C-alpha cells in the first residue's frame, strides 16, 4: 500500500512541469485511450470519459485544455484509480460558482478543494439535503440547486473512478442491453465464480501494476491485451476498434478549436488586406478561411459518424453548425459578388461563434444519448437544419449590419460602399428569411408528426415565429420604402436579438415548454452584455447619422439615398 501511494505521486510530480514528457501524451497511450467504457447511456472510449470528467472536476480551461495537474486526462484517470488515497486528498476540484459556494458555505479565499474535503463538508451536505427535499416535494429547482446537484454528481463520478465502481469497462458477456461490469465488480467476491472474468481481472491488475511500477510500455501492452480480451468476451457488444479510434482522434484533434484559429487568422489577413491592398494577404486570408471551413466540416462529419445522428442536438452543436453555415453562405456569396466583405465577416463571426461554443462552460460539447422524442426522425433533422441555416444567414447579416453602421464612423462619405454593403445585407436577410420561414413551418410538420399538433404556441415555436415576424416586418417596411439602408442595418441587429431569444433565451431564460430536452442555465451575463453592447452601437450610430444628416455635403447622402 505504501508503495502504491508513493510511486504514482512521484510519477505525477515528474509530469507536472510545463515540459511534461511529450512521449507520454503521444500515441503510445492509444490502447489505453481506446478502451471502451459504458457511461452516461452510451459506450465511449476511456479518453472521452477522462476528458469529460476532467472538465467536470476542474472546470473548463481556456482553449479546451484538459490536463489535470499536468497529467494527460487518461493517465490522470489511471493514476487516480491506482492511488485513491493520494488523489482523494489532492485539491483538484474547482468550485467557482459564487451562488453554489455560498449555498454550500464553502470556505472563502480559495476555489480548489479535495474530494475528501468536499465529501465531508457539512455545508455541502445540508445543501444537497435541502435540494433533495425540494425534489421530493416536486418543487422547481433554481439554478443554484442544479449547481449543487451537479457538484454532488461530479463528486460521485470521481469517487467512482477511485473505487473503480464508475469504471464500467467490462461488457456483459450475454446481454447486450445490460449494464457493464465495473472494475470494482470484477474484483468483487461474487465475480470470482464467473470463469470468464478471471483473465479480465488478471489483465486489469497487470495494467495497474505496470502503472504503479512506472512502466508505461507495460501499461500499453496490458491495455492492448485487456481490450482484446474484452472484445472476445462480448464480440456482439464491444464497439468496433475503428469507431473508438475515430472518437479518440476527434478528441485529440479538437477540430473546432483548430477551425476558429484558422477563421481568426483568415479574418485578420483579410482585414489587413483592405488598407494594404495586398493580393498575397488576401489569398492567405482566403486560404485560412477555407482551411477553417474544411476543419469545421471535418469536425461535423466526425461528430455525425461518432454519434450516428445529425449534429444539431444540443446548444453546442447548433453553434458549431451555425458557424459552419455562416461561412458556407459567405463563400457562396463571394462566388457571386467577388467582394471580400462576406469572407472577412464570416471569418470574424465563425471564429467568434466557435470560441463561444468551445469556451463558454454552459455549452457542453459532450456527445450524449438523445431523449426519445429526438430519436429517429427525418422531420426533426430537416427542420432543425433548416432553422439553423436561417440563423447562420442572420448571423452573417448581423455582421454586415455592424459593418454598415461602422461606416458612419470610419468611412462616412463612402456612399458607394454603403450602398453595396446594404445590398449584401439585404441578400443575407433574404436567405435567412427563406430558411427561417420554411424551417419554422417544417417545425410544425415535425410537431404534428411527433406531438399530434401542427402549432401549439410552445415557447420555442412562438419565439421562432416572433423572430420571423420581426424580419418580415423589416422586409415589408423596406418594400414600402419606410425602412432605408440605415433601418435595414439596425433591423438586422435588432432581429438578431430576437433570434438569440429563440435560440438561447427559450432554453436558458424561459426554461419552460415542450423543448425542455435542451434546457440549461447560465450565460445571462454574456447575453446581457451583448444586448447592452448592441444597444450602444445602434444609439451611437444613430447619433452619428443625425449629425451627418444635419451637415450639408456628400455624407448626408449616405442615409438619404432611396432604397433599392
Amino acid at each position, binding site marked *: 500500500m505504501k508503495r502504491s501511494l508513493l510511486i504514482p505521486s512521484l510519477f505525477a510530480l515528474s509530469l507536472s512541469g510545463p515540459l511534461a514528457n511529450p512521449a507520454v501524451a503521444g500515441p503510445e497511450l492509444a490502447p489505453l485511450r481506446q478502451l471502451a467504457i*459504458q*457511461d*452516461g*447511456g*452510451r*459506450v465511449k472510449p476511456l479518453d472521452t470519459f477522462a476528458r469529460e470528467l476532467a472538465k467536470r472536476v476542474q472546470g473548463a480551461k481556456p482553449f479546451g485544455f484538459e490536463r489535470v495537474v499536468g497529467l494527460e486526462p487518461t493517465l490522470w484517470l489511471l493514476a487516480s484509480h491506482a492511488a485513491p488515497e493520494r488523489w482523494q486528498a489532492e485539491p483538484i476540484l474547482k468550485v467557482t460558482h459564487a451562488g453554489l459556494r455560498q449555498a454550500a458555505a464553502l470556505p472563502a479565499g480559495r476555489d480548489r478543494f479535495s474530494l475528501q474535503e468536499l465529501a465531508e463538508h457539512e455545508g455541502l451536505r445540508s445543501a444537497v439535503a435541502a435540494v433533495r427535499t425540494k425534489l421530493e416535494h*416536486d418543487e*422547481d429547482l433554481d439554478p443554484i440547486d442544479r449547481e449543487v446537484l451537479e457538484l454532488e454528481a461530479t463528486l460521485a463520478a470521481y469517487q467512482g473512478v477511485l473505487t473503480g465502481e464508475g469504471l*464500467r469497462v467490462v461488457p456483459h458477456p450475454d446481454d*447486450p*442491453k*445490460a*449494464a*457493464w461490469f465495473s472494475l470494482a465488480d470484477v474484483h468483487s467476491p461474487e465475480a470470482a465464480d464467473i470463469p470468464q472474468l478471471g483473465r479480465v481481472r488478471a489483465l486489469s491488475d497487470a495494467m495497474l501494476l505496470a502503472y504503479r511500477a512506472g512502466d508505461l510500455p507495460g501499461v500499453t501492452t496490458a491495455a492492448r491485451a485487456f481490450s482484446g480480451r474484452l472484445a472476445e468476451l462480448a464480440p456482439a457488444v464491444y464497439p468496433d476498434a475503428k469507431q473508438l479510434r475515430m472518437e479518440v482522434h476527434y478528441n485529440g484533434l479538437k477540430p473546432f478549436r483548430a477551425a476558429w484559429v484558422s477563421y481568426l487568422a483568415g479574418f485578420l489577413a483579410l482585414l489587413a488586406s483592405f488598407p494594404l491592398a495586398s493580393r498575397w494577404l488576401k489569398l492567405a486570408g482566403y486560404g485560412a478561411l477555407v482551411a477553417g471551413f474544411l476543419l469545421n466540416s471535418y469536425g461535423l462529419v466526425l461528430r455525425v459518424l461518432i454519434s450516428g445522428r445529425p449534429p444539431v442536438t444540443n446548444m453546442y452543436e447548433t453553434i458549431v453548425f451555425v458557424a459552419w453555415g455562416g461561412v458556407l453562405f459567405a463563400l457562396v456569396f463571394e462566388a457571386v459578388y467577388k467582394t471580400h466583405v462576406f469572407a472577412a465577416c464570416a471569418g470574424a463571426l465563425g471564429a467568434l461563434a466557435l470560441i463561444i461554443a468551445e469556451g463558454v462552460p454552459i455549452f457542453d460539447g459532450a456527445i450524449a*444519448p438523445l*431523449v*426519445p*422524442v429526438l*430519436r*429517429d*426522425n427525418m422531420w*426533426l433533422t430537416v427542420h432543425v437544419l433548416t432553422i439553423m441555416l436561417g440563423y447562420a444567414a442572420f448571423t452573417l447579416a448581423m455582421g454586415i449590419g455592424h459593418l454598415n453602421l461602422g461606416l458612419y464612423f470610419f468611412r462616412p462619405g463612402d456612399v458607394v460602399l454603403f450602398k453595396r454593403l446594404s445590398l449584401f445585407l439585404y441578400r443575407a436577410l*433574404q436567405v435567412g*428569411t*427563406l430558411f427561417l*420561414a*420554411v424551417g419554422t*413551418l*417544417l417545425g*410544425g*410538420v415535425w410537431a*404534428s*408528426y*411527433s*406531438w*399530434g*399538433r*401542427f*402549432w401549439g*404556441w410552445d*415557447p420555442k415555436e*412562438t*419565439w421562432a*415565429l*416572433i423572430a420571423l*415576424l*420581426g424580419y*418580415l*416586418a423589416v422586409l*415589408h*417596411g423596406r*418594400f*414600402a420604402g*419606410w425602412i432605408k439602408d440605415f433601418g435595414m442595418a439596425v433591423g438586422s441587429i435588432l432581429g438578431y436579438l*430576437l433570434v438569440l*431569444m429563440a435560440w438561447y433565451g*427559450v432554453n436558458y431564460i*424561459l426554461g*419552460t*415548454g415542450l423543448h425542455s430536452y435542451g434546457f440549461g442555465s447560465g450565460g445571462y451575463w454574456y447575453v446581457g452584455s451583448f444586448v447592452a453592447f448592441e444597444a450602444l452601437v445602434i444609439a451611437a450610430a444613430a447619433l452619428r447619422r443625425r449629425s451627418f444628416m444635419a451637415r450639408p455635403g456628400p455624407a448626408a447622402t449616405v442615409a438619404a439615398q432611396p432604397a433599392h
Partner: protein
Amino acid sequence: MSPMLMNDKGFGGRSFRLLASLRLSVVVMVTIGAICASATFYEMRHGTPAVQRDVYQTSWFAFLLGLLGLNVLAAMVNRWPWSKHHVGFLAAHVGILLVLVGSVVSLYRGLDSNMALYEGETSDRVSLLEPSLQVHVPGLGVSGTFAVRFEKQPPRAGRELRFAVPGSDVVLVARDYAPHVEVTEAVTAAGPRRTLTPRPPPAKEARRQAAVLLQVEGAAARSEPVWVLWGERTGVAFGGEQASVAFRPPEAQLPFRVTLLRFNNEAYPGSRMAATYESTVRIDDPERGSFETLVAMNHPLHHRGYIFFQSSFVEGRPMISIFSVARAPGLPLVYLGTTLVGAGILWMFYVKPWLARRQGALALAAHSTRENRHEAQSADPQSLRA
C-alpha cells in the same frame, strides 16, 4: 372584390385600402410579435394552461390572427389583375392563408384528446382536454355533461351556477369552487375519510388541484352537497336513487376499439435515461377488421383520420400507457400552405430577379439585333430574305 372598390374614394374604398395596406401588415406583425413575446414570459410565471387560456385561445388573439389573414387576402385582391410578376407573391401569401385556414379547420372540426390504457385494457373512449361537470342518475335515465370555465366564472356561495339536464327536472348545482385544495386522508372508525381544505393556489397551474362543491337537485329531492376533486367522479344519494357527479373532461367515442397489449420502456444500457417507449396495440374496427401495430415516439398510428401518439406513461404494474389522440382535418391544407410559402419566397427572392435579368438580357439582345438588322437592311435589303 372589384377594381371599382379599390378606386372608390368613399368609406368602402378607403377601408379596403387600409385593410390591404403594408402599413397594416407591419403593424399587425409587430403587434402579434410583441404579444407573443410577453405571453412567453407570462407562461414562464403562470404555466402553459394559463397562457393558453388568457392569451392564445382568447377571441382578441383570434381577431388579430384573423386581421392578419384579411390583410393578406386584401393585399392579394388589391393587386388584381394578376400578372406573372405576382407568382411568388401570390404563392407565399396564399400559403399563409392556407396555414391559417387549415388551423381553423383543425380547431373546429378536429379533436384533441387523451387516452390512458393499462396493459390488457380495451377502450373506445377518449377524454377531451377541457373541463366539464357531469351528472348521471341511471335509475331515472338522466345524464348530462356541461362545459365549464371556472377560472373565469367560478361559482361562489350566494352565486351558484345551475345546469339543467335537458328533458328532465334534474339540475346540477355548482355551489362553490376552490382553485386549489389540500387533500388529507385519515382512517376513522367509519373507514377512510378524506378532507379537502382550500389553500392559496401555487403560481404554476399544473400544481393546482381544483375542487367544486356539487349538488343534484330535482323537483322532489336533493342530494347532500359534495366536494369533487378535479378529474374525479363521486357517487351521491339522490332521493331514492344512486347518482354520480363528476368534475373532469368529457369523453368522446371512437368508431373502433383499442387494446393495449404491451407497453415497453427501455433505458439506454447501463443508465436510467429513457431511450424509447412504445406500446403494442390492437385495433378492432367493425368496418375495417382487426390488426396489431406498434405506437412509439415518432411512430404514430394513423387510423381513419385519427392519429395516436405515444405521449407518456405511468410506471407500475401493469404499466399505463398514455396516448394523445388527435384528428386534424385541416392538416393537408397546412402542408400545402407550407409548401407554397417556401416556393413563393424562393420565387420572389431568386426566380423573379433571375427572370427579370433574363428578360432584360433578351430585350437588350433583341434591341441590338434590331439595330443591326436596321443597319443591314439599309445597307443590303437582299440579305434579310436569305
